């Protein structure tokens, strides 16, 4: 499978664009920019899924693309924007690790993902391997975002962008059963709903969405 063929290159390019947006997510300083970047990542993921549906001829992937677009590019960002406005949140993202250090860690994780996946999947098509490596990078970067952000909304977006990586991996593997993708997409919605419930409760109890305030209640809670 050479790299000169358009269908596979485009799939690759979409994956790379999703990874690029993961970096953009790490880079932003303002909450609304983070939410918008997440919405863009969702739209790109929907494009990638739709393209894979076209290339593999699987109708189910179009459904996945529609769900990804509807949920991650429209509904969830809208809900998050409303949440920010409602609690009149401080508009800055408070990183626990500096932006520069986060980016360096991000590149390290992406490199690590490459080095882990590519040799281990040596028996497969080159395209599938690179897609899996890209997807794992997106997953790890989402995890990095969860770890290095103190704001609850940023943590939720980190978790959701991690799920984006998983969906990217699932659509890249040809012939993945539809029930998997549909249920993954549905579970993402449930995750978002639960996170939203949390945010509402937390905002009411604490008047802020900074998870630092939760830290004092950790452990034995002295």
């Amino acid at each position: 499978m050479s790299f000169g063929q358009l269908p596979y290159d485009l799939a690759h390019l979409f994956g790379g664009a999703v990874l690029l947006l993961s970096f953009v997510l790490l880079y932003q300083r303002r909450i609304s920019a983070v939410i918008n970047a997440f919405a863009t990542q969702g739209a790109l993921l929907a494009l990638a899924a739709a393209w894979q549906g076209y290339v593999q001829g699987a109708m189910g992937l179009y459904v996945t693309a529609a769900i990804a677009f509807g949920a991650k590019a429209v509904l969830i960002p809208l809900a998050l924007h409303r949440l920010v406005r409602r609690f009149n949140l401080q508009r800055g993202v408070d990183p626990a690790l500096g932006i520069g250090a986060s980016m360096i860690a991000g590149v390290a994780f992406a490199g690590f993902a490459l080095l882990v996946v590519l040799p281990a999947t040596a028996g497969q098509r080159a395209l599938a391997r690179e897609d899996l490596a890209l997807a794992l990078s997106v997953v790890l970067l989402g995890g990095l975002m969860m770890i290095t952000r103190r704001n609850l909304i940023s943590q939720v977006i980190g978790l959701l962008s991690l799920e984006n990586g998983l969906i990217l991996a699932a659509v890249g593997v040809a012939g993945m059963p539809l029930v998997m993708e549909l249920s993954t997409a549905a579970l993402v919605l449930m995750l978002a709903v639960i996170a939203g419930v949390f945010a509402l409760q937390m905002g009411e109890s604490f008047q802020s969405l900074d998870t630092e305030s939760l830290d004092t209640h950790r452990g034995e809670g002295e």
Partner: protein
Amino acid sequence: MSILTGLVTQLLHLALILALAPVLTGCVRWLKARLMGRRGPHPLQPWRDLLKLVKKRPVLAENASIISRAAPYVAVGVALLAAALVPSFARGMLLAPFADLLLIAGLLALGRFAMALAGMDVGTSFGGLGATREMAFAALAEPALVLAALIFAILAGTTHLDVIIGIFQEGALGLRVSLGFAAVALLAVAVAENARIPVDNPATHLELTMVHEAMILEASGRHLALWDFQASFRLTLWLALLAAVFLPFGMAAPGAGPVAWVLGLGVFIAKMAALAFALAVFESAIAKMRLFRVPEFLGAALLLGLLGAVFLFVSTGLS
């Protein structure tokens, strides 16, 4: 025969660059004005300004040294040479064997060096301020450029610009993720090198926001004309580089006839116009970044370049 065509294309290219550079700056300025709802100066206005300035005698400070007198000539010479190396409408020009990406990066660095020295020469605070800021940005932008060159080199097997363009033109490589990362990195570097928003505002004269302007604050007359020429050459150089590498179609192959040159010229003008429009839209749409964020911006570009290089390295190494 090929040397003759090479010479002819090189001379035509030089003439094109000389004529086009200030017009390009004028066009970008005019487009920005129109997008902001103003009438804007005529696209040929920079030529009129330059011709006016060239006739005037430069006024130098009492303690200005030979650097203030020589730096504008060095900078404009270097910029023109670098612009001459980047092909516009035809490949295989006379100087093509010297057109190496790393050489171009070095020439740009030399020009920047001359500008920084000129800014610091007289000892004013603004000059020093501009010079330090410019050098700080360059410390991150240059590695990003070199990493992008590395990506091209891994893909094409050489940093020779003509060969890279030739290979990209064939289309055998197709679209690749690393090229996408390299494109983003190069765009960020181009913005930084040309002192465009969001890194630096080319129209500002407020002390706190100046970077490029601060270094040439003392220049006047002929010297100022040369500095403006130099900025135009750099802009043309960068846009031509981006067009040649990422939009390589339409360029005449080495040794082709005048018909191909005319075609290449038409395509080149179209590409420049499109890129100028894109630049104008981009500059009008976003605000200038706070100064301490520029290292983050350029650092991100550097890391993207690094990521693209790592990606390419690992995947070509394993397959």
